[in-house]
């Protein structure tokens, strides 16, 4: 039984009990507990099931490396799966539930897989793809889908908020153990801007548990004193509950702060993702203890030796009355001492080394504990918890020498420095054979922009395991002045690497030696992968899924690659490690999204009239980040009806279009005319002041890129209108040419798109409506077609353009954006007698199609040149050059075989589906029908009462009257006649009145 001890527990506050539930059962812990310590304190040793075999799983560690003890935490909008109990703080009312079992944790049907382990070997997933062919789809995939996945997906909307924060520092020290504290103190004294971050709520790391003496006092006291000193330094920032998730180029460090995980619903953001730019990063991330590979090392009650003493010392939790220690090093003896100090029994220390001498083993022997030298565990007895161990010779094959009854096993296979951050940006590792660990190679660090080291590893993260070495290393690494803080801890004898226990274990034992207890990868699986040819550690990892679980192999990787090396008969450094990638531990999706959710998921651009539209039935469509009204719905009206109504209104009286989103770019300077002549295919330098001209812009490859009306404002100033989506792109395009190519031309540009609200007033009554506002002479004589005037219209500062995209008498009026809403409402009021109404983008599209006007993005798709659209009239023949001219002269572009724009009229009056292709005789090399054209725009025209379309057709303009076939769905063919693309008012009389 695991239980709470009567005394002790340096992190818990017994005056603050907290209740929580596990699978609905009420339990109690204390403030300062983790979920794991609270569960153990309540004798909940079995906390989950493994991924593949559904084996019972207990708490194995006390930190971020925990592979097993994951739970679903919370409910509703605060439910989150896969919460690591060892790093989750207990809070009052926490609701936890175990994962990956059915129907219950105690009785799990899936555990049957455990009996069929022979049929689920390494790579079984891949093998199911192979044979028999039908089985993947019908047998394996449904089965795997049913059983895969640890946690449940949250169903409710997340109730919490998340945020980013940007920060900058000279030095960020990651890890608040004694190494990090010593480094922060030394660096802080030098006046550097220092951040010290610690992933847990507590400072001091392992040293405070291990009874280290620093500067003549307990580590605990030294930590408190040092923290106080650091808090007094203005240049030092301390952050607990903050984990360095990943390191990226140029000192860019992502840090994950868990602000309110332990105080849910208190109004604070739950997580904050720090986006830190650091001059230098020091990793003081410590080391992680490795398990030993013996049969049954996954049974609940088998724990890391360091974790056992953490639970005893930090949280006053005993894993059981009798704990057997199994080790290959001296450090685990500290666990024996901690257990003895707490009044618990240690039946034996099983040491794989032929001899256990030195201070620590002697201290344990002196307390009356038997130390079994040269021994190992043949197997652990028990099912859902440990009942005993059978002891064997480490050098043998596993014959049982004796059985020792116990409730828990504390194992230690040595320590692995946490080298993740060191490695993220390319820092390399060396194999230290004496200590049996990969440690950072200071000669091959990750480098910054200056080519110098960007990261320095210190302390245990740098492979130093004694407190004195750790402090010395930390102090020196940051250039500390004077001597490092001195530390005293027991001397340790060398470790003996043990990768399999016992050394000669046969297949039956190896099948039960877990390397990765979350993903159920065993020694036998890695050996099988090696036999099947997976020699690269990266391949073997993916084949076996070793280290691919949510713990990312923190305790399993080194053991796994040692087994792989052994199977391949090569040295461990020849095998190497897998790649260390961010994040160090999983971070929440909420933190990644930051503030971007709901209303501010994405910027929404609104015109000055947006709110008016919203309250008048606007049916929105996205255009870039803008929302534009597709049409304005009236009560009980469908979209199609609304569009038709709007078109009839414009054709018969007058309508209003919010055209504010159109791009507006000022181009000014002595060379502005010359510049625009290069940008547009036609001449803009000759445009007289007061006039407008439609223009086309192509890219260097000759393809049509944008279009719009250009206005000559003054002798040296033009205003270029672009498409809505093209405004920023074209402005950037202009600046690109001016800054990079024609840097000596005297031209300035300014994007003034948002300065103006622009309204198209279109229809036979347009002039009458504007005349009612008054203030400007807008008669045909005073303001002819394709000209503009500035003045005051109904009290508004206005620039009025006589341009038409609908084919009707039309004015586009620009007023200051701040007055846009008032101007719009003035138009609505003045137009009442004409039944004025707003029209949306769909009505605009249909009316332009009725007139045969092209639309960028419909008639163009990046492969269309102006000549394809019969726009030769807008291409100047007088100019030596313009962007795209040379490309358009190339043989393919000039070919008469190119598809060209025509109008299309269905024989039955219906509408051709958008994008439909016209077929030609015969088939191509792939057996597909040959094609001779395609539809680019297609609508029902309410004006003409029939379907109209534009399309690109081979030799199209020469084939007027010809009928071509558009096969559509289900063998149906739409027949359409090639006609002139101008369907409405061919002479243009309506717009010129």
């Amino acid at each position, binding site marked *: 039984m695991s239980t709470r001890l009567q005394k002790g527990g340096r992190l818990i506050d017994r005056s603050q009990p907290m209740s929580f539930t596990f699978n609905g059962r009420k339990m109690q812990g204390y403030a300062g507990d983790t979920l794991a310590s609270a569960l153990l304190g309540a004798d909940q040793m079995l906390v989950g099931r493994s991924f593949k075999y559904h084996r019972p799983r207990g708490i194995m560690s006390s930190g971020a490396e925990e592979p097993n003890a994951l739970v679903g935490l919370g409910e509703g909008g605060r439910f989150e799966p896969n919460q690591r109990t060892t790093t989750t703080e207990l809070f009052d009312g926490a609701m936890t539930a175990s994962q990956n079992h059915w129907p219950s944790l105690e009785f799990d049907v899936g555990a049957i897989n455990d009996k069929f382990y022979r049929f689920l070997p390494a790579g079984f997933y891949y093998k199911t793809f192979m044979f028999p062919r039908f089985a993947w789809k019908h047998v394996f995939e449904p089965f795997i889908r049913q059983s895969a996945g640890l946690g449940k997906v949250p169903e409710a909307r997340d109730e919490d*908020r998340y*945020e*980013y*924060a*940007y*920060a*900058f520092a000279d030095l960020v020290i990651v890890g608040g153990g004694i190494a990090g504290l010593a480094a922060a103190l030394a660096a802080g004294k030098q006046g550097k*801007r220092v951040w010290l971050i610690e992933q847990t709520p507590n400072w001091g790391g392992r040293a405070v548990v291990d009874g280290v003496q620093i500067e003549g006092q307990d580590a605990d006291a030294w930590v408190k004193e040092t923290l106080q000193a650091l808090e007094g330094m203005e240049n030092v920032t301390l952050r607990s509950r903050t984990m360095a998730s990943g390191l990226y180029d140029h000192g860019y460090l992502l840090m994950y702060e868990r602000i309110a995980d332990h105080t849910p619903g*208190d*109004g*604070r*953001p739950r997580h*904050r993702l720090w*986006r830190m*730019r650091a001059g230098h990063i020091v990793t003081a991330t410590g080391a992680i203890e490795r398990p030993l590979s013996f049969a049954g090392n996954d049974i609940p009650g088998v724990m890391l030796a360091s974790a056992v003493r953490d639970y005893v010392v930090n949280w006053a939790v005993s894993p059981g009355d009798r704990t057997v220690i199994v080790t290959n090093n001296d450090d685990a003896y500290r666990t024996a001492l901690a257990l003895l100090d707490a009044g618990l029994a240690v039946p034996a220390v099983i040491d794989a080394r032929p001899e256990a001498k030195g201070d620590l083993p002697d201290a344990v022997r002196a307390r009356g504990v038997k130390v079994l030298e040269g021994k190992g565990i043949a197997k652990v007895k028990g099912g859902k918890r440990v009942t005993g161990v059978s002891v064997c010779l480490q050098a043998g094959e596993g014959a049982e020498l004796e059985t020792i009854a116990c409730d828990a096993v504390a194992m230690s296979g040595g320590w692995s420095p946490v080298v993740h951050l060191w490695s993220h940006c390319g820092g390399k590792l060396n194999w230290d054979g004496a200590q049996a660990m990969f440690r950072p190679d200071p000669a091959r660090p990750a480098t910054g922009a200056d080519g110098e080291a960007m990261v320095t590893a210190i302390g245990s993260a740098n492979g130093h395991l004694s407190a004195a070495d750790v402090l010395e290393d930390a102090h020196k690494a940051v250039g500390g002045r004077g001597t490092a803080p001195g530390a005293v801890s027991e001397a340790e004898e060398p470790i003996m690497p043990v990768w399999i226990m016992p050394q000669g274990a046969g297949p039956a034992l190896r099948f039960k030696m877990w390397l990765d207890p979350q993903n159920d990868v065993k020694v036998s699986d890695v050996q099988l992968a090696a036999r099947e040819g997976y020699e690269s550690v990266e391949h073997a990892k993916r084949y076996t899924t070793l280290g691919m679980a949510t713990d990312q192999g923190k305790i399993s990787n080194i053991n796994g690659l040692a087994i792989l090396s052994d199977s391949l008969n090569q040295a461990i450094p020849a095998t190497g490690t897998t790649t260390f990638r961010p994040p160090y531990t999983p971070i929440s999706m909420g933190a990644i999204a*930051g*503030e*971007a959710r709901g*209303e*501010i998921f*994405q*910027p*929404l*651009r*609104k*015109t*000055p009239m947006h709110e008016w539209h919203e309250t008048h039935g606007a049916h929105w469509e996205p255009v870039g*980040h*803008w929302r534009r009204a597709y049409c304005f719905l009236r009560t009980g009206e469908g979209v199609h009806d609304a569009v038709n109504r709007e078109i009839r209104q414009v054709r018969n009286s007058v309508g209003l279009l919010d055209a504010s989103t159109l791009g507006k770019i*000022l181009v*000014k*300077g*002595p060379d502005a005319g010359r510049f625009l002549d290069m940008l547009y295919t036609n001449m803009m330098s000759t445009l007289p002041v007061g006039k407008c001209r439609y223009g086309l812009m192509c890219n260097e490859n000759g393809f049509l890129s944008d279009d719009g009306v250009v206005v000559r404002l003054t002798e040296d100033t033009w205003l270029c209108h672009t498409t809505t989506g093209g405004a920023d792109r074209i402005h950037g395009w202009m600046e690109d040419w001016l800054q990079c190519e024609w840097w000596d031309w*005297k031209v*300035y*540009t*300014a994007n*003034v*798109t*948002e*300065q*103006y609200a622009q309204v198209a007033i279109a229809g036979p009554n347009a002039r009458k409506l504007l005349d009612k506002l008054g203030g400007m002479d807008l008669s045909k004589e005073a303001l002819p077609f394709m000209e503009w005037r500035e003045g005051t219209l109904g*009290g*508004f*500062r206005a620039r009025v353009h006589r341009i038409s995209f609908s084919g009707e008498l039309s004015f586009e009026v620009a007023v*200051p*954006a*701040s*007055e846009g*809403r*008032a*101007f719009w409402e003035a138009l609505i009021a003045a137009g009442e007698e004409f039944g004025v109404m707003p029209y949306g983008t769909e009505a605009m599209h249909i009316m332009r199609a009725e007139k045969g006007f092209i639309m960028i993005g419909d008639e163009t798709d990046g492969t269309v040149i102006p000549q394809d659209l019969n726009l030769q009239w807008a291409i100047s023949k007088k100019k030596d050059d313009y962007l795209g001219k040379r490309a358009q002269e190339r043989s393919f572009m000039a070919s008469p075989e190119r598809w060209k724009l025509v109008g299309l009229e269905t024989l039955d009056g219906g509408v051709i589906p958008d994008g439909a292709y016209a077929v030609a005789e015969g088939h191509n090399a792939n057996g597909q029908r040959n094609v001779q054209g395609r539809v680019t725009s297609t609508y029902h025209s309410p004006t003409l009462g029939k379907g109209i379309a534009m399309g690109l057709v081979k030799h199209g303009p020469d084939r007027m009257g010809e009928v071509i076939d558009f096969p559509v769905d289900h063998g149906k063919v739409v027949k359409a006649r090639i006609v002139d693309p101008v369907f409405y008012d061919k002479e243009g009389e309506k717009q010129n009145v």
Partner: protein
Amino acid sequence: MSKAVSALGGVSHSGFVDVAEAGLRGMITVRGDLASAKMKKAVKAATGTAVPAARRIELNGDKGAAWMSPDELLILVPYAEAVATVETLEKALAGDHHLVADVSDARSVFTVRGAKAPEALMKLCPVDFEMLEEGEIRRTRAAQVAAAFWKSGADEFTLVSFRSVAGYVMGLLEVSARKGGEVFPA
């Protein structure tokens, strides 16, 4: 011009700092040779200030001049004076290659007020507030959109964005300033 209204009608929110839409402000883009004698005169005439150095803003009461790029300034005046100031600048710069454009209506202006104002802004703008000098203007971004800001008072920042995204920017500021979100709680 009583018809002129700002994008959000002066909406404000109170969190651990106060955020508010500041209303209309006259803003004029000026491009030209920033080192020229004419530019010095023009800026002086328009705002009473010197031409700002790189990344600096020169303030004079409700007027000011901010550096935008090596050949661009942003002139700040009361909204009602923008049209007249454009004329002043045009006259002063006549003869030199230049561009003057009224962008008063293309922008929205916000204030972030309170001792912890940087703690709201540092969630949105990748700016080192500890190194931000007095009189410095920073062109940056607020989350996903372009923005610029400067310190406009002892505990106040003024932030400018495009008008069309005013609602988005106010949404960002409101959530970033919400109580409980203090980055460095006392």
